[in-house]
C-alpha cells in the first residue's frame, strides 16, 4: 500500500489550500479527485481548453431520469459536462409533499478544482458577527418568527473568532488572486491584496445609484478573477484587454485560467514537485479505521479498480453532502467507525445552505451584458448589528448585483421563468406564444435589459435539516446516495422577506435616479420556489459542524473528528452557521488555518 504524509480527498476550496501548503513545506501529499483534470488551453496537449465559451457546456442536451422510486422519474434534466449524471449519481431530496425526487442541487462540480471551476467567483469574507451568532442572540426576545425560541437555542458561536481567521483571509486573497475594493466593506482588514477591478458593466450603474440613494455603502464585489499578472500562481493576463470579461462566467470553466479556481491558483503551481501527486478520476468509496486512526483510504481508479492508500493525516473535502455521505458509508461497513465518529448522533445534522433570493427588473436602456464578470457592486449594510436588530433578525447577510446572468441568448431563454437546474427550459418551451414577432418582442424586452440584485444571508441551523443515506437508491458503484431532508424555518422566511425587500428597493431607487418609484415586479426568495426544499444555492455547508464541545459538534476547533487522531474535514461541512456571504473564500481561509495546524503535527 502506498503511503503519504497526507491524503486529501477532493481538490476544491476545502482540499486544495491544504495540499498547496503541505506540499510546499516538503511533505508528501496525495490528492484524490473524483472528477477529471480539465485544463486551460496553454497546458493542453491539443492547444485548446477542455472548457469552452459555449452555452451548451453549461447546460447541455436533454436527458431523462430513469431511477425508480422517485416522483420525478421520466422527467427531463439537463446536465453540464462536469456535474454528475442524475441517473448515475443523484442527490435525492424529500419534497414538501413527502415524495422523494432526484436533484442536481447540492453538487457543485466534479472536476479538479471542484466548484471553484464553475463558480461565479464572488469572494466575500464573512462578518465578524457571523462567527458569534450564539452569544449575539443569547437572551434576545425580539426575534421575529421564532415562536419556539429555536434561534436562541440553535445559534452557535464558532470556536474561532474573526481575529483568528483574519490573517488567513488575507493569505487566501493573496494566494488565490482576487480583484475588488476594500473601502466600505463592513469587515476589518489587516492587509489589502486585491487586484484592481475592471470597469463595471454600465448596467450596474443602476445598482450604484440605488445603493447610494439608500445610503448603503458599496464596494466593488471581490471576484476571484485575476485582472493583473499574479505572481503566487505564475499566471499572466493576456494582452487582450479585459479578456476574462465575457459573460461565460457563472457555470463556465475558464479556458484561459484567469478565474482563480483552485487548480490554476493553487495546485497547478505544484505540478513539478516530486512530493505532490494528484490523481484525477479517482472516487474514494470509503475509509477504513485502525484504532483511533484512519488506516486506509479506498478508492476506484479511472478503470474502476479498487486501490488502497494510507496517509499519516487524512483530509476529507468532498463538499459537505458528499463528505457526510462518504463518512456514513464508511460507518455502514464498520459499526466501530460509526461509534467513534458519530457517538453524539450529529453526523449529517445541522446541514445548511444560505437564505437567498433577491429582486430583478427590466431597467431603462439596453447594455451589452456579455461584457461582464459575475458581479460589480456589493454592500454590507445589511450585516450591521443595527440593521439586524432593527428588523428583528438573528443575523445579517450580503447584497450584491449579478451582471453576467442571462447575458447570452440561450441562457436568457432557458432561464425565462425559472432559476434552477431542475426547472430550466420549462417556461420557454411552455410559452408557445413566443414565436416570430413575439419572440422578437421577448428579446427586445429582456436582452441586455435585465438586472438582478441578490442576497446571501445566514440560515437558521436546525437539527432536523440533515443529510442521510437514501434507503434504496444507489449510485453506479452500488453506494447509497445522499438523501437531503430539510425545510426552511419561519424565521428564515421573515429574514428572506426583509432581504428581498432591500434588494427591491435598490432597484426601485436605482431605476429612477433615486426617487424609489421604479417598478420592480420580481422579488422574493427561495422559500417560495416549488422545489424550495431542494434548493441549495450551490452553497453546501454544515453537517459536521466544528465546536469546542465534543458533545455538541462533530469536529474539534481544528476541524479534526473528535475521536479520530488523523481525520480532518475541511470543506463547507465544518460550518456551524452558514455565514452572511458566499462561502468559498471562508472555506479556503479556514483550510489554510487548518493547514498550519497540520504542519505543526507533521
Amino acid at each position: 500500500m502506498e503511503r503519504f504524509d497526507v491524503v486529501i480527498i477532493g481538490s476544491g476550496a476545502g482540499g486544495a489550500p491544504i495540499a498547496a501548503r503541505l506540499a510546499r513545506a516538503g511533505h508528501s501529499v496525495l490528492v484524490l479527485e473524483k472528477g477529471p483534470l480539465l485544463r486551460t488551453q496553454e497546458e493542453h496537449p491539443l492547444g485548446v481548453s477542455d472548457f469552452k465559451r459555449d452555452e451548451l457546456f453549461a447546460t447541455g442536451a436533454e436527458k431523462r431520469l430513469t431511477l425508480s422510486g422517485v416522483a420525478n422519474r421520466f422527467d427531463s434534466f439537463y446536465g453540464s459536462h462536469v456535474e454528475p449524471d442524475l441517473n448515475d449519481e443523484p442527490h435525492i431530496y424529500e419534497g414538501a409533499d413527502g415524495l422523494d425526487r432526484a436533484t442536481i442541487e447540492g453538487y457543485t462540480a466534479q472536476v479538479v478544482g471542484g466548484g471553484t471551476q464553475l463558480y461565479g467567483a464572488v469572494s466575500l469574507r464573512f462578518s465578524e458577527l457571523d462567527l458569534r451568532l450564539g452569544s449575539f442572540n443569547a437572551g434576545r426576545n425580539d426575534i421575529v418568527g421564532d415562536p419556539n425560541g429555536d434561534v436562541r437555542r440553535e445559534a452557535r458561536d464558532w470556536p474561532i473568532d474573526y481575529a483568528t481567521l483574519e490573517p488567513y483571509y488575507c493569505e487566501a486573497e493573496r494566494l488565490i488572486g482576487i480583484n475588488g475594493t476594500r473601502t466600505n466593506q463592513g469587515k476589518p482588514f489587516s492587509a489589502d491584496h486585491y487586484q484592481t477591478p475592471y470597469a463595471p458593466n454600465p448596467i450596474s450603474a443602476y445598482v450604484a445609484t440605488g445603493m447610494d440613494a439608500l445610503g448603503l455603502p458599496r464596494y466593488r464585489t471581490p471576484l476571484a478573477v485575476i485582472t493583473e499578472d499574479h505572481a503566487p500562481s505564475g499566471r499572466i493576463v493576456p494582452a487582450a484587454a479585459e479578456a476574462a470579461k465575457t459573460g461565460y462566467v457563472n457555470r463556465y470553466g475558464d479556458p484561459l485560467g484567469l478565474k482563480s479556481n483552485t487548480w490554476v491558483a493553487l495546485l497547478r503551481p505544484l505540478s513539478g514537485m516530486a512530493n505532490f501527486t494528484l490523481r484525477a478520476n479517482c472516487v474514494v468509496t470509503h475509509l477504513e479505521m485502525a484504532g483511533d486512526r484512519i488506516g486506509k483510504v479506498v478508492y476506484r481508479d479511472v478503470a474502476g479498480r479498487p486501490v488502497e492508500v494510507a496517509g499519516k493525516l487524512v483530509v476529507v473535502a468532498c463538499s459537505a453532502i458528499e463528505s457526510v455521505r462518504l463518512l456514513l458509508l464508511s460507518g455502514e461497513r464498520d459499526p466501530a467507525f460509526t461509534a467513534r465518529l458519530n457517538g453524539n448522533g450529529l453526523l449529517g445534522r445541522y446541514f445548511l445552505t444560505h437564505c437567498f433570493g433577491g429582486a430583478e427588473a427590466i431597467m431603462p436602456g439596453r447594455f451589452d451584458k456579455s461584457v461582464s464578470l459575475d458581479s460589480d457592486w456589493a454592500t454590507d449594510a445589511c450585516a450591521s448589528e443595527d440593521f439586524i436588530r432593527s428588523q428583528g433578525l438573528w443575523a445579517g447577510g450580503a447584497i450584491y448585483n449579478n451582471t453576467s446572468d442571462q447575458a447570452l441568448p440561450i441562457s436568457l431563454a432557458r432561464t425565462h421563468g425559472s432559476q434552477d437546474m431542475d426547472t430550466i427550459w420549462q417556461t420557454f418551451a411552455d410559452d408557445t406564444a413566443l414565436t416570430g414577432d413575439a419572440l422578437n418582442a421577448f428579446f427586445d424586452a429582456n436582452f441586455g435589459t435585465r438586472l438582478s440584485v441578490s442576497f446571501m444571508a445566514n440560515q437558521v441551523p436546525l437539527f432536523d435539516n440533515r443529510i442521510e443515506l437514501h434507503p434504496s437508491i444507489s449510485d453506479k458503484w452500488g453506494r447509497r446516495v445522499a438523501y437531503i431532508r430539510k425545510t426552511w424555518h419561519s424565521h428564515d422566511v421573515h429574514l428572506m422577506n426583509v432581504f428581498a425587500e432591500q434588494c427591491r428597493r435598490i432597484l426601485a431607487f436605482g431605476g429612477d435616479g433615486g426617487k424609489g418609484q421604479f417598478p420592480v415586479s420580481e422579488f422574493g426568495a427561495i422559500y417560495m420556489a416549488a422545489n424550495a426544499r431542494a434548493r441549495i444555492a450551490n452553497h453546501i455547508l454544515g453537517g459536521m459542524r466544528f465546536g469546542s464541545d465534543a458533545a455538541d459538534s462533530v469536529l474539534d476547533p481544528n476541524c479534526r473528528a473528535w475521536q479520530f487522531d488523523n481525520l480532518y474535514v475541511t470543506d463547507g461541512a465544518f460550518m456551524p452557521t452558514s455565514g452572511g456571504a458566499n462561502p468559498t473564500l471562508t472555506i479556503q481561509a479556514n483550510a489554510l488555518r487548518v493547514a498550519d495546524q497540520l504542519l505543526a503535527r507533521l
Partner: protein
Amino acid sequence: MVPVLAVDSEYLFGLIGKFLARDDAGPRHDYGHLDADPRAGILEPWRFPWVDAVFDPDDATQPDNAVTFVHAAADRQPGHVVHLVGSFADLHTPIPLLPLVDTHYATVTLRIRKGEVHHYRLRIDGVWQVDPINPQRMLLDNGVEWSRFFTWGATRRLVLERWESRLLQRLCSHILPFHTADGETFFKRVHDAQGPANRAPHAYRLDESAGAVNFIDKLLAREEAHHLIDYQICLELIDRLLRLRNPVIEPWKLPREVFAELYREMATASVAGWNYGRYGNPRYFLQLLRRHTLTGVFSHPRYGGNAMTLGWKYLEERYRDASGATLFDWGRAIEAPLGRNSAYRG
C-alpha cells in the same frame, strides 16, 4: 495517411472515468430508445468517438478536429488488440488503438477535417465489428453495418429524410423571428454584404431557420437520439394532415398561414385530424421543437446550427446604442475565425 495526434493520458482519462467506469452495468441511461442494448449502461455513449477542437498554429481557419476512439475491453482485462479502419483514411491500413497505460482501455486520437461524416469499424480480438460503445450506426449500400460519427459543423443530412427536413424547416421558421419584416431585412443585408464569391451556399440563403434544421438533425443523430422517434411520428402525422387539408400543394410549400394555424392548434393540443392514437400530445412535440429550434439558432456553430453565426449576428445588428455600437458584441469573446478574440482558441 490520417495524422495521429499525441495526447497525454490525463486527457484520455478525462474522457473515460465519468462515462465508462462503473460497477452497475444496468440500463440507467435507457430513455426508452436503447432497449436491452448494453450501451444503456454507459453514460452519454454518444460522446464516443470524442470529437474535440485542436489548435493549428499554422492555419487560421482551424480546419480540423481531434477525434478520439476508445475501446473498453468487455472483460476489463488489459492487453486486447484493437484496430480501426474508416472512411477518413485508407480502408486497407488498420490503425492501432494503443493501450491506455495499464488499463483495459485502448485509444487513438486522429486529426480529421471539420464538417465531415465518416464511417468506421473496429477489429477487436481479430473480428471486424461496429464500435460497441458508439450508438451511431449506418448501413452501407452493400448492407454492411458500420459505426458513424461526424465532426463539427457537418451539414450532410443524417437522420431526417429530405421531406422531413423541408417540413421541419417551415415549422422552425415559424418559431424564429427571421420571417418577420425585421428578419427579412436582416437576411437580405447579410446576404448582400457577402461578395458574390463569398455568398452563402444556396441552402442557407433560403433557410430562414439559420441552420436550426441541421442542428436538429445532428442532435437527433447523437445527443438526443431518444427524440428521433418524436420527430418521425409527428412529421409524418403533420404531413398527412396537411395533405388532407390541401391536397394539391406539397406540404412544405404551403403558405405561411397554414403553418401558423397548425402551430396554434398544436399549442392548444387540439389539432383537427391529428392521430392521437399514434402520438398523444402534439403540444409536447411543439415544446420539444421550441427548445431545439432556439438552441440551434443561438448555439455555437460547431453543433451545426447558427449557420454563418446568423443567430448571433441578428442580435448583434438588432441591438445598438445611439452611436451605432452593438449591444451584443459576441465576437469579442469567441475564437477566430468565427469571432475575434485574440487569446481564446475555441
